[in-house]
């Protein structure tokens, strides 16, 4: 660790379409990826590098998605990257003016990875609409660090950088609250988990994978199986 550590930290940006992900990406990296006010603007994942407190961060801007159910190519890209890419930190960019819908995605992301920071963006727009968001309570409810930003004016971006740094380096360990699915599903999960656990480092990921297995999501499992199960099926 410390100054001699040349290892790049990998940070992903996820969020609903048109929440200002690309604006935040540009603000952090100093790059000028084109931004626009319509959903679906980012069809390719953009990458950029920035430095903070002596560490190098690789920032990956994933296409905007409403969920991670993987019905569309964007959702699949985002989901696969979060699960297989093992990012050091993930920033969920949420639109403060319609927080509830944005929290759906945040909760889904938090099921895959615990190293999450929720960035409540467009806080200035929300204020204009007379909306007040209690950031401290939100952080407590979610179990992850939360920061309010107005990326277009730069408000809150320093704090965001601090949080990314702290989470990616392991100085803060977020502890996302687990979603309870009720007796019916939990019972089935308990039967699957022991079979998956040996192959997955994090308990959270095993649980997420088990849920997808129950849903019968074959595209994901195929990829996963190719990565982890093929080798030892020969013994």
């Amino acid at each position, binding site marked *: 660790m410390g100054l001699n550590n040349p290892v790049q930290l990998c940070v992903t940006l996820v969020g609903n*379409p*048109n929440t200002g992900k690309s604006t935040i990406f540009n603000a952090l990296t100093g790059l*000028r990826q*084109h*931004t*626009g*006010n*319509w*959903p*679906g603007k980012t*069809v390719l994942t953009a990458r950029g590098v920035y430095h903070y407190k002596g560490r190098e961060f690789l920032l990956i801007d994933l296409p905007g998605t409403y969920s991670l*159910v993987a*019905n*569309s*190519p964007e959702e699949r890209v985002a989901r696969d990257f979060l699960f297989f890419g093992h990012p050091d930190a993930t920033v969920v960019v949420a639109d403060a*003016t319609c*927080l*509830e*819908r944005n*929290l*759906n995605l*945040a*909760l*889904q992301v938090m099921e895959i990875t615990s190293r999450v920071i929720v960035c409540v963006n467009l806080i200035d*727009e929300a204020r204009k*609409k*007379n*909306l*007040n*968001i*209690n950031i401290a*309570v*939100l952080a407590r*409810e*979610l179990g992850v660090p939360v920061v309010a930003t107005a990326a*277009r004016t730069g408000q809150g971006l320093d704090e965001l950088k601090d949080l990314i740094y702290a989470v990616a380096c392991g100085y803060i360990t977020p502890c996302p609250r687990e*979603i*309870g*699915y*009720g007796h*019916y*599903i939990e019972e*089935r999960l308990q*039967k*699957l988990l022991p*079979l*998956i656990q040996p192959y997955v480092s994090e308990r959270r990921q095993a649980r997420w994978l088990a*849920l997808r*297995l*129950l*849903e*019968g999501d074959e595209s994901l*499992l195929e990829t996963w*199986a190719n990565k982890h*199960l093929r080798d*030892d*099926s020969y013994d």
Partner: protein
Amino acid sequence: MTKIQELYRLAGELGDGRKEELQERIVKAIYRQAEAISGRVVSRHPGWACDWDRRIDDVVTSRLTGFPLMLLLLGVVFWVTIVGANYPSEILAALLFGLEDPLSFLFDYTGAPQWLCGMAVQGVYRTVAWVVSVMLPPMAIFFPCFTLLEDLGYLPRAAFNLDGLFKRAGTQGKQGLTMCMGFGCNAAGVTACRIIDSPRERLIAILTNNFVPCNGRFPTLIALATLFFAGSLSTSLSFMATAVVTTLVLLGVTVTLLVSYLLSKTLLRGLPSSFVLELPPYRMPQVGRVIVRSIFDRTIFVLGRAVTIAAPAGAVIWLLANNSIGGQNILKGMANFLDLPARFLGLDGYILTAFILGLPANEIVLPILLMGYLAQGTLVEPANFQDLGNLLVAYGWTPVTAFCFMLFSLLHYPCGTTIWTIYKETKSFKWTIAGVLIPLAVAVIVCGLVNFVGRLILN
């Protein structure tokens, strides 16, 4: 049995074949949680809050006012571009062409051979000078205007308005968004088709993106509309030029809808899929930033690309125009060969040659054409727009020729970059060829018809 199969089997048993129900339970649990948290965290200040967004949307997307407003916006953007681009174009042209003689002199002075001077100055330099003076001003005005609309949040509303029409054509409104991107660059428009989920509709959008004039063709259209339909710059005539350009764009949209309809009834049969398009909140664009960014990021970038293609193309065309095979000038030979089919389309051999040689980039069609004309015994070298108009008339151009030229430019086929992009996006040789042949067929039919009718009226 492998472990993955074992897992599948167990999961299948646990699901009791009720996967949909399980999925629904899972999604519901997440939504309930999000709702609960949001309820604890978000509070609305008491006080007067008017939902401006909704009020504006009521007007902008209404059945009654939506379309006229869209047309009006389009017209205003074009008008601002046409009027605003004219003076800088004149000044740039005068400046750049004024440098041509000193450049030639410099070549003579250093004792460079005659052909080198010709190729470098009359070939490369002149083509580049044309591309810069014709393209730069309209782009520098159009791009910021368009980006302002984009940042404001208007584009999704336009797509929403168009959805009804696209539905009837068997596709969907998101195609409208990809067309908007096509205004900037068709290659970008084709890439933007990724936002369309249904493969069938995505393919239709890819194949028809060419019917939106990109920035390579847009300045050409504006230049010709200004020359032939707004002889001088009085206000009423600039409106006339605006009307011509707007009509052309509308025609492009009409053709898009018609071709989409035909495709969805024949090669790409299917029902239109529904889609969710969120109308984002209106946001005040950061005007200064938009102008700076769209000039430096887009305009300079696109211009740079055009120049890098125009420079070598200029050299090649100069060589064609100034060399002979078997006593026959090559460019002239090509033009003569193509003259007959071109006449049928209301064009002439040189115009068709220019379109064919302009395949790498549409920006260079007009410079190629001029070089072709000028190479056959120079009349006047156009130093400004007015001279250019006179030159074209001297070569037998009528308003019908100009209109057919504009139509052919609007419809013909995508540029080399876009064709390559279509191939990359569809990964299909067959569809790439369709992406070239369909527009070409449309262009031939439309130009042939317009020429036929135009001649009947004029005679």
